[in-house]
């Protein structure tokens, strides 16, 4: 669950952000027809193409033959459950990132989901903005930044080895957690990251923080990296989360 998820599918245009530049081909394996159609429409509005499969077997066949960037797989499917579809795909050597959608949201369920070869796990009901943000972050065509030692966004620079942050050449002192927060935001610069994604990736907790704890951390960080500079780099995406973006 995401806090404060006033989801709006028309997010990019509404907030004045550019539509997502790396359009993805998404396979949605979901047996609930209405939910599937909604996802197709919503992904379309976000600039992506979504194909639908209504059961596990069809989904497996499509995932095997099609060239998809992302699989969105419902956990409970007719004929073949979502997790076994993912395991079967992985056995075929296909490593298309997969996001599991499930009504089961406990720690152990997520562990099972990720163990079966899923890359991310989202519990129903979810806000579309959350799903979209997670799917976009999973997109490998954006290019993995794992090997980069220095992240740059405009005049902001983060060195992962020396643990230093500079803006316009001027060093900014951050607390260790603030550094990890900024590191995650910069790693996904230009992409929306939600509050739950931050809690998961920066704090390694998967529960719902209920209150605005993450927002306060972000605004502290924002204070440090924007104070004394004219251009904002850390943007709030209304109803979704945050995006680090130069200019």
């Amino acid at each position, binding site marked *: *669950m995401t806090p*404060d998820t006033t989801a709006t599918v028309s997010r990019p245009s509404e907030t004045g952000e550019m539509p997502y530049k790396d359009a993805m081909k998404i396979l949605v394996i979901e047996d609930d027809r209405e939910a599937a159609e909604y996802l197709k429409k919503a992904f379309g509005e976000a600039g992506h193409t979504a194909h639908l499969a209504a059961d596990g077997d069809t989904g497996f066949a499509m995932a095997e033959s099609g060239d998809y960037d992302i699989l969105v797989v419902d956990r409970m499917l007719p004929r073949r459950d979502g997790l076994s579809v993912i395991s079967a795909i992985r056995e075929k050597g296909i490593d298309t990132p997969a996001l599991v959608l499930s009504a089961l949201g406990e*720690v152990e369920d997520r562990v099972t989901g990720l163990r079966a070869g899923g890359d991310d796990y989202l519990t129903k009901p979810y806000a579309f903005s959350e799903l979209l943000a997670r799917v976009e972050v999973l997109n490998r065509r954006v290019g993995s930044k794992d090997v980069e030692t220095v992240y740059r966004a405009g005049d902001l620079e983060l060195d992962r080895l020396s643990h230093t942050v500079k803006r316009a050449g001027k060093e900014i002192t951050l607390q260790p957690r603030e550094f990890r927060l900024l590191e995650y935001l910069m790693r996904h610069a230009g992409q929306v990251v939600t509050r739950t994604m931050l809690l998961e990736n920066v704090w390694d907790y998967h529960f719902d*923080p209920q209150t605005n*704890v993450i927002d306060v951390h972000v605004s502290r960080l924002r204070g440090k990296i924007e104070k004394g500079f004219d251009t904002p780099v850390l943007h709030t995406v209304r109803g979704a989360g945050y995006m680090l973006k130069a200019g």
Partner: protein
Amino acid sequence: MRLPAAMRTTAARLSALYLILFAVFALILVFYVTSLSGRMLVAQTQETIVEEVQGLASAYQRGGLPLLVRVVERRARQPGANLYLIADPNGRVLSGNVQALQPGVLDAVGWTERPFAYQRYGENEAERQASRIGDEDVAPGDMPHQALAHIIRLPNQMILLVGRDLGEPERFRKVIRNSLMAALGLMGLGALLIWYFVGRQALRRIDRMAQASRRIMGGDLAGRLPVTGEGDEFDRLSENLNAMLARIGALNEGLRQVSDNVAHDLKTPLTRIRNRAEAALTGRKRTSEYREALEQTIAESDQLIRTFNAILMISRLEAGYSAETTGPVDLVATVADVTELYEPAAEEVGVALESETPQQPVTISGNRELIGQALSNVVDNAIKYSAGQAEAPKVVVSLKAEAGEAVLSVEDNGQGIPEEDRVRATERFVRLEASRSQPGSGLGLSLAKAVMTFHGGRLELASREPGLAVRMIFPDKTPSAAAGKE
């Protein structure tokens, strides 16, 4: 034919089996004893006969045939006397008390090979004079007695027979057999009676238990099986079943309470959502108003979903969570994580969040996520209820490793919880009157409590002046492994 109910019990069936086995062994014993005693009597008889024969032989040596005949005549007249017979080499009877003999008995010397039939003088007075040994008119079938005899040939080829009736050992054997059989019969009868009463006793206990369980099934959920206090197997069974009933009852009660609370607490936001949607539909509205109504609806739905998730999580924790996701958890790191997470938010509302932890890691076995979430809930509450309540609102999270326990406490100097409300505070959905205005599902403390129970620990509330101390007490050693199996 149906057996009486008491005889149809398992105990009676087992008893019957024992009875049959016992009877078989007892019969074997009876036959063994009687045949052994019979054989002993025969041996004794033979011994007596040998002595007699020797005595008579010496009488013959001393006084010849006349003395022998005299001795035999005298002895033969004594009551219960042995059988005596003196015959000439042709088998003609000279003296003795035997009237008739099975033919051929006198042909051999030594012990007769098998018991033979005979008839004694005096048993049938009418025939006494008329009969001679070997006469056709006394058929072997008419000779009712059986005897064993020793036959010798005297030096003058005369035949001397000394024998003894076998009726006595035979009677003795019969007496032993009959008394043993009678005793056996009595024992069997006694056993049957005892088993009948014991079985009926057991059956009565079972019936009472069955009645009690029928009453419970019939809806008397507070009913319990009878315990007599004898501490026997029925009591043990009843006690176990009662403990089980109590557990089921507690779970049932919890479930009922939850559904009541769910119904009550979820109806309110659902009604609000519905009313808002209805209000948005009526009258002419600007797009921005629709948008606002929708956004509020989504926010309210999210809150509802959050509440549902918390309920589900508590239920799953109480039902016994999989122990698969547990492992070593360093509580020092958890405290650091949570205080670090909440510190900016606390500062924002003017609350000082501090932590006191040992230098060394305090590692317990558990689920890091659950403990983190429980501590977050408690800290979140503490911040909420101390903000603006004191001169210098302060929340202190401390960790102490005490004897066999790890104690995580969260202390604030806020409004606290009145004594009378403290137990209720950890119940689901209980939001004490003073906090009705605060946002939240009212499940934070309940969830923390469920997490503590899952870890084999407990959650305690204590009053501070002013404020509240929430103590989360973990048992030291591998608690969740045991909790997960429950």
